[in-house]
């Protein structure tokens, strides 16, 4: 991965500045005859402050893509340029540490960043307010509901001082009502903190509800099939007719992609 200082340039126009640039990215697992091509020549520019939903059926390498951007896995080909931005990654499971309190789980992220002990406590408290969990800092993760835990995970990601948030189906395990409310919350925090979000999901409506843009990936190997700009102004509702209309157009494409693998 090449990292340049481009993101810190002053004079660039914020609306066109690219936060994450993927250029011809490919990823192969294994070697020889059993090698599996997970991603093939994926190119994608994510502008600063943009919310991009990445959508695909099973086997499109969505999660792989985020791991690559986060720098957890080496690339097979191409380049990923995150231009000096701080990244954080969230999963479907909150993956909180059970031996720490809720506040402790946030403080550990601050600690790894080298924040002083006294400042950690205060900052963790503020982050809990951001995710509307003030007063829950001394609880243990298992004492919270699934939606609350996922908000703690979000606060932990924010504690890393990340301005690029990579989210791997973060609401996939939640019920519809909770997910709906968390969409509002994520949208609010994204806007307040001017985050750049790469949001992976297999839920078409969720992708349309949240994204400025929806990127559709093919399956095995993952390639960019098509991009859809979501024109509808925010705040949107997941059950609005506009969201539903675009979602059904995208679903048609997704279905076609899935049936391509029938034979």
């Amino acid at each position, binding site marked *: 991965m090449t990292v340049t200082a481009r993101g810190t340039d002053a004079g660039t126009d914020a609306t066109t500045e690219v936060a994450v640039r993927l250029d011809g990215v490919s990823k192969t697992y294994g070697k020889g005859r059993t090698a599996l091509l997970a991603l093939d020549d994926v190119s994608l520019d994510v502008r600063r402050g943009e919310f991009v939903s990445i959508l695909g059926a099973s086997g499109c390498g969505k999660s792989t893509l985020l791991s690559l951007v986060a720098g*957890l896995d080496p690339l097979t080909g191409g380049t990923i340029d995150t231009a000096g931005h701080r990244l954080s990654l969230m999963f479907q499971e909150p*993956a909180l*540490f059970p*031996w720490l309190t809720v506040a402790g789980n946030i403080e550990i992220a601050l600690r790894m960043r080298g924040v002083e002990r006294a400042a950690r406590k205060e900052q963790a408290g503020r982050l809990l307010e951001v995710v509307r969990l003030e007063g829950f800092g001394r609880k243990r993760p*298992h004492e*919270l509901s699934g*939606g609350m835990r996922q908000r703690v995970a979000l606060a932990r990601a924010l504690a890393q001082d990340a301005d690029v948030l990579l989210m791997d189906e973060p609401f996939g395990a939640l019920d519809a009502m909770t997910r709906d409310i968390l969409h509002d919350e994520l949208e609010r925090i994204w806007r307040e903190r001017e985050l750049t979000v790469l949001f992976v999901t297999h839920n078409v409506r969720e992708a349309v509800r949240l994204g400025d843009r929806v990127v559709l990936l093919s399956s095995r190997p993952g390639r960019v099939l098509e991009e859809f700009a979501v024109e509808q102004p925010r705040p949107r509702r997941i059950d609005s007719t506009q969201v539903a209309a675009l979602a059904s157009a995208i679903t048609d494409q997704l279905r076609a992609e899935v049936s391509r693998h029938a034979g």
Partner: protein
Amino acid sequence: MPADTEVKTAADRVAGLDRLELGPATRDEAVLGTWARKAWKGTWPKVLAIAIAVGAWQLVVLSEWRPVFVLPPPARVLDELVQVVPTAKFWDSVLLTMGRAATGFALAVVIGMVIGIAVARFQPLRAAIGSLITGMQTMPSIVWFPFAILLFKISEEAILFVVVLGAAPSIANGLISGIDYVPPTWKRVGQILGMRGFSLYRHLIIPASLPSFVTGLKQGWAFAWRSLMAGELLVIVPGALSIGVRLQTSRDLNDAPGLLAYIIIVLCIGILVDIVFSTVDKALRKRWGLTV
């Protein structure tokens, strides 16, 4: 101001959902009552177990299967216990034996941890030593005594040697499986948070493997205690009047009540220490939310 009300209602929605999902708060008044009920629930099976054991014992005595001086009734042994327990020589024996147990166990913990971390860390070691450790665990530790006596003569060291050999494999194994089963998502979180090398162990691997480690400690203690009792009966160090020596002396003097009294003491110590480990284990599981 519509924007303000929207912010307010969004906050209310979140707060309302949280309240609903967490369920009704438990009332404090009921706590004392439930505590008493819980204590009783935990106690009565133990009381019943003792009653059954003592009852069966008494029945065997009544059947006159063996003469009373060889197999005394429970009441006679209880008398013996009441006489022996307050004496200084009894406590000296207990202290000596427990001192040996503590030293051996502490040594086993240190050695087990070093081996455990080394094996978990270095792949080549794992293949070579991993199965060896499991093999050691299945070995009755008494097998080691002839060799220990040859190595260390009749001495404290001979006993410690076998106690450590008995306990260390379980402790190492507990740690290894703890480290092996750290959930991969936690490790990825650690990676994302920037944990590397020592800080990865300190903030993630060690705390995450704690429950399994405690299980290993508990098992290690059981092995240590067994090895120690075998050792004290086989390796009688002159002048050291341990519990094992008391047992042996009682046998030599045909003092059946004394023998049974010390057997009961050994049982009680084992149970007490097990309670300590179980309490730690339970507290840990509760903190982690692993119990319902």
